[in-house]
């Protein structure tokens, strides 16, 4: 606990102009926390070098263990207000008080009361905060790489180059994966004009001869138990072995899509219709022939338009917009939880593979020219999907007179009497609907991540063996974050290559490097006792008071990152190195046994209690507590204030780590003390969620429904508790959201019936 606080109130930036700073100082000096605030001062400009020097001197002389700086938003002047080990609490008088204050004609003169509330809340908050002292585990440093294909081998070598030991697990008897089945690949480097060798043989040679890399083939991961930095991997390679693992790079790649989806284009019914993977195998083996008669084809048509196969499925964006699965139902006592793994492959994987489909068609058209001399190649495409630098490779193909390229929508693929294949197409660049007869037709091979079919990771986690929510990504172990492509719901496991997204070898090479960095970084963070993204470097961690735990399992079920396992009784077993410090467990716990040293139930609850609530709403106005996500909604409020927006003077903002950390008791306490309404402002949820902790805002909205129902039973209108989704750029909308609540809820329902009790 911070027990000797310095409280400083700034007069700059309109604060001194709008407020009587001396009387504000008195609220601390004469308040109930005066005894723990030996230093209470004002400053003309608190961020000025002189003022900062003064604070530093006070810390030294008075032995302050915390300073409450009542000035501007904590988002600004952060670099100036840093005082080593002394805890700092920022009270946002500028943005949340004076800049956004609007006088209410019915209850004038509220600004001093609002400022007093915020100052007292800040002092209370810091007084309930301790500096966390995380236990620092001695971590394993070895990287487990799953998959010995191009991506996995690259990852293993990158990790070894960084000095890390690697265990490489490959399911097949030989290394090389899909790349080893390729004759060539499209260009991987400047000038991006010619197909080239994949380089896989060199990668295999380098990995197998590298002393830091232990290669296990014909092997599979039986289970991965533990947590980042502390994993035990059980691998079966003709007998089970265990390895102490720090973090994992998941590079198990892809499997060719179900060829059944290609039936509308003649696959399976027409002999001379093959897939790109089958064509590649022929090229690799040395001779390209027609399956029907073993003769070299004089013409080969590569079809990349798969709309005949995907019709009715790609249009189904409804799938993508469908709501996420509800939380797992609580398993009945003693009942074993069987988790079937729903298969995630669909015809849409053909569409998702479009970039590789186009590049492969160009590459294989090149094989026809290279290996079959006078034969011609047709490439019929709907959209030539070669974004970026590979345009140059496309251009090189266009310059080859033996490769005919045209836009075309394929309408039918049929077999001719002589074994030829007739491709009918419309919307071509050749002026009309056409029919092309080819000796051989090549259809795309869909890239389907192995994780569409199986959990792969075999995690020994309370929440199951695989990655949750993969249906959002059609089975790919992708991230929902554009900005943070390696962040998933499983700390310590970083996917790369085609298991993450359909990608080229050049892309996979880069991706492997990125995933290795994240894996090594995760071990380092675990080893320092700090959080990884997005609260990187945070030393706090959830502490459990197990004596009061009732084994309700809410925390273990709701943790977005699967950080909590449990014992047979249901008592949670924390894994701090899996944890992202969002506080969702703290918000979930009905017994309030989970806390952080510097962020806890009592602390926020005590802050709320510092808000003055007049007994008479008509004379003193209503009061509304706004629990604000500090990542997005809070900055949006700052920006609104900066833009001169204002809102009701009856609201008080309380920042929270994530709405997921909001515990129902805060709402209940607020209501029981007479607060007239509670607003929760958090991130968007649903399939395109913006919550940095994946599920926080969504979970909060579910809990809100429960809270509101409970209030209803007590005779308090459920509408008094509401959650709104606010993006960080909705600074112009957020004042109206608050206004609407004030008129539609508070004005409509009047005072909280508990007021005054």
């Amino acid at each position, binding site marked *: 606990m911070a027990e000797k606080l310095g409280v400083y109130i700034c007069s*700059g*930036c309109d604060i001194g102009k709008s407020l009587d700073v001396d009387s504000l100082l008195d609220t601390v000096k004469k308040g109930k926390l005066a005894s723990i605030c030996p230093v209470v001062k004002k400053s003309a*400009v608190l*961020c*000025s070098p002189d003022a900062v020097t003064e604070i530093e001197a006070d810390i030294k002389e008075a032995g302050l263990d915390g300073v409450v700086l009542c000035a501007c938003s904590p*988002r*600004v002047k*952060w670099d100036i207000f840093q005082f080593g080990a002394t805890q700092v609490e920022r009270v946002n008088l500028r943005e949340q008080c004076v800049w956004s204050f609007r006088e209410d004609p019915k209850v004038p003169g509220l600004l001093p009361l609002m400022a007093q509330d915020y100052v007292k809340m800040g002092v209370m908050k810091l007084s309930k905060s301790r500096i966390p002292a995380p236990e620092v585990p001695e971590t394993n440093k070895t990287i487990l790489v799953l998959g010995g294909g191009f991506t996995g081998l690259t990852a293993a070598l990158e990790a070894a180059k*960084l000095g890390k030991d690697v265990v490489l697990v490959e399911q097949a008897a030989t290394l090389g994966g899909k790349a080893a089945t390729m004759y060539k690949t499209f260009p991987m480097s*400047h000038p991006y004009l010619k197909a080239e060798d994949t380089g896989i043989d060199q990668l295999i040679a380098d990995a197998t001869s590298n002393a830091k890399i232990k290669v296990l083939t014909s092997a599979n991961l039986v289970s991965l138990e533990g947590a980042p930095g502390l994993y035990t991997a059980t691998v079966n390679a003709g007998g089970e072995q265990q390895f102490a693992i720090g973090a994992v790079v998941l590079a198990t790649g892809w499997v060719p899509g179900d060829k059944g989806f290609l039936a509308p284009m003649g696959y399976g019914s027409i002999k001379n219709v093959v897939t790109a993977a089958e064509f590649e195998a022929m090229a690799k083996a040395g001779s390209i022939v027609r399956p029907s008669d073993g003769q070299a084809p004089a013409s080969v048509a590569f079809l990349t338009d798969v709309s005949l196969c995907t019709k009715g499925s790609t*249009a189904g*964006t409804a799938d993508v917009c469908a709501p996420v699965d509800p939380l797992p139902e609580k398993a009945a006592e003693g009942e074993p939880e069987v988790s079937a793994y729903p298969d995630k492959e669909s015809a849409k994987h053909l*569409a*998702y593979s*479009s*970039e590789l489909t186009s590049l492969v068609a160009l590459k294989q058209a090149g094989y026809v020219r290279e290996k079959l001399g006078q034969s011609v190649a047709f490439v019929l495409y709907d*959209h030539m*999907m*070669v*974004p*970026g*630098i*590979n*345009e140059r490779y496309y251009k090189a193909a266009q310059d080859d007179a033996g490769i005919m390229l045209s836009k075309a929508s394929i309408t039918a693929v049929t077999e001719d009497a002589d074994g030829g294949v007739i491709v009918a197409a419309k*919307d071509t660049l050749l*002026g009309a609907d056409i029919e092309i007869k080819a000796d051989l037709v090549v259809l795309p091979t869909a890239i389907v991540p192995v994780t569409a079919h199986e959990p792969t990771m075999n995690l020994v986690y309370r929440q199951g063996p695989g990655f949750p929510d993969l249906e959002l*990504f059609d089975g*790919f172990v992708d991230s929902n974050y*554009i*900005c*943070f*492509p*390696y962040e998933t719901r499983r700390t310590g496991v970083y996917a790369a290559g085609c298991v993450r*997204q*359909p990608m080229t070898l050049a*892309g996979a090479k880069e*991706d*492997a*490097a*990125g995933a290795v*960095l*994240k894996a090594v*970084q995760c071990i*380092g*963070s675990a080893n320092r006792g700090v959080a990884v993204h*997005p609260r*990187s*470097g945070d030393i706090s961690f959830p502490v459990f008071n197990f004596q009061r735990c009732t084994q309700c399992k809410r925390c273990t079920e709701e943790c977005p990152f699967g950080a909590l396992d449990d014992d047979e009784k249901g008592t949670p077993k924390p894994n701090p190195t899996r944890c992202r410090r969002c506080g969702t467990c703290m918000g979930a716990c009905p017994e309030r046994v989970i806390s952080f040293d510097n962020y806890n139930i009592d602390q926020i609850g005590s802050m709320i209690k510092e808000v003055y609530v007049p007994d008479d709403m008509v004379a003193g106005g209503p009061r509304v507590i706004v629990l604000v996500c500090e*990542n*997005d909604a809070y*900055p949006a409020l700052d*920006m609104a204030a*900066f833009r001169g927006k204002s809102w009701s003077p009856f609201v008080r903002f309380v920042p929270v780590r994530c709405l997921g950390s909001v515990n129902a008791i805060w709402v209940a306490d607020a209501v029981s003390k007479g607060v007239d309404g509670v607003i929760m402002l958090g991130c*968007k949820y649903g399939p*395109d969620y*913006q919550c940095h902790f994946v599920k926080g805002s969504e979970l909060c909205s579910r809990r809100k429904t429960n809270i509101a129902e409970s209030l209803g039973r007590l005779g308090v209108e459920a509408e008094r508790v509401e959650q709104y989704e606010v*993006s*960080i*750029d909705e600074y*112009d909308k957020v004042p109206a959201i608050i206004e609407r609540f004030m008129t539609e809820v508070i004005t409509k329902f009047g005072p909280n019936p508990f007021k005054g009790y």
Partner: protein
Amino acid sequence: MSNNSILVVGGGFAGITAALEAAEMGHEVYIVETNPYLGGRVAQLNQYFPKLCPPSCGLEIQFQRIKNNPKVKHHTMCEVVSVAGGPGAFDVKIKQRPRFVTPNCTMCGECEKAASTSVKSEFEFGLVDRKVAYSTHLFAFPQRYVIDGAACAPGELEAIKAACPYDAVNVDDAESTFDLSVGSIIWATGWKPYDMAKLDNLGGGKLANVVSNMQFERLAAPNGPTGGQILRPTDGKAPKRIAFLQCAGSRDENHLNYCSYICCMASLKHVTYIREKLPEAQVVIYYIDLRAPGRYDNFLQKVAADDKLTLVKGKVAKIVECECKSPILTVEDAVTGIKGEERFDMVVLATGMQPSCAGAKLPMDLPVDDDGFIVGGAELGVFAAGCAKLPLDVMKTAQTGTGAALKAIQNVVGR
């Protein structure tokens, strides 16, 4: 013994990502950025495809990471002048332009009020003017004003200083240089929009109602010049018919011989802006191929279902304007072969991306291709990331930034 520090040239998304990922591995990192703010091109975007989420959301997290990590140092308004030494031991000379505003600044805005001279806003792509004392945008990081000393009228700088209540204006600020000793360098200087003025036949830079896709981003942004309303530059009216021209400068041997990767998805995203803000507006996209790779296909399908959007595979040969300043397009539909003229209220050129260093002399001898992309450098201890290396979207940029951080660390570890 190698110097473990890393220099990141460029503070856009690739550079910030690379810097943070390296710093969170324990390395000291310096970001040098030419703009007065970090965030680069993404700071100018309204939303990202395909999630339609605001870039400031991810940037806020990145800035939090910077704030909480003393290992990251950033220097704005800086350029690399020269690089001496080699892998493991570089000596880099940095030039810093004067900002004239000290850390005392509280963003109160009095300087802006006191300034009298205005020039075209670079951040807003010339859509509006800014004062010589200015803040580029709402989420600017660091949050501090800038004074464009060179554009000040005589005495103006002094007047601005006099107006500042926080003694945050230093009239004597001047160009300075400083040196950094680092072991690796990450080159993440990003991209610039292809100059519209080179698209002569399309009226780029000449016809007022023909804007670039980046200008369109600003028109849709709530912190942009119109407060997020899509309005015609000439008369401030909401357009009823809008055309997008894909590959404006890209995939064209006379301009850029590559595809700029993002413009198809960006235009599809712009259709969603229009639909939100102008529900009745008609939109036509003229394209060669609609490039929505991977799972972006879902976004293409979603947008293509808009019944007021027409997708035309075709070429626009020419744009002129009518008396009312509406652009008139000479169009050839590639499938039907039909040529004709189409009138729109506004046209958006989906201009491509060019490496920022295209045409400029680099301060060190790095391998670049004819278009200015960096195509090597690892053996020199320099690792390119983001659009300095290839045309990429934001997600792939973050990926390359992370990969480059690994390479930069490998280069200094155990050397």
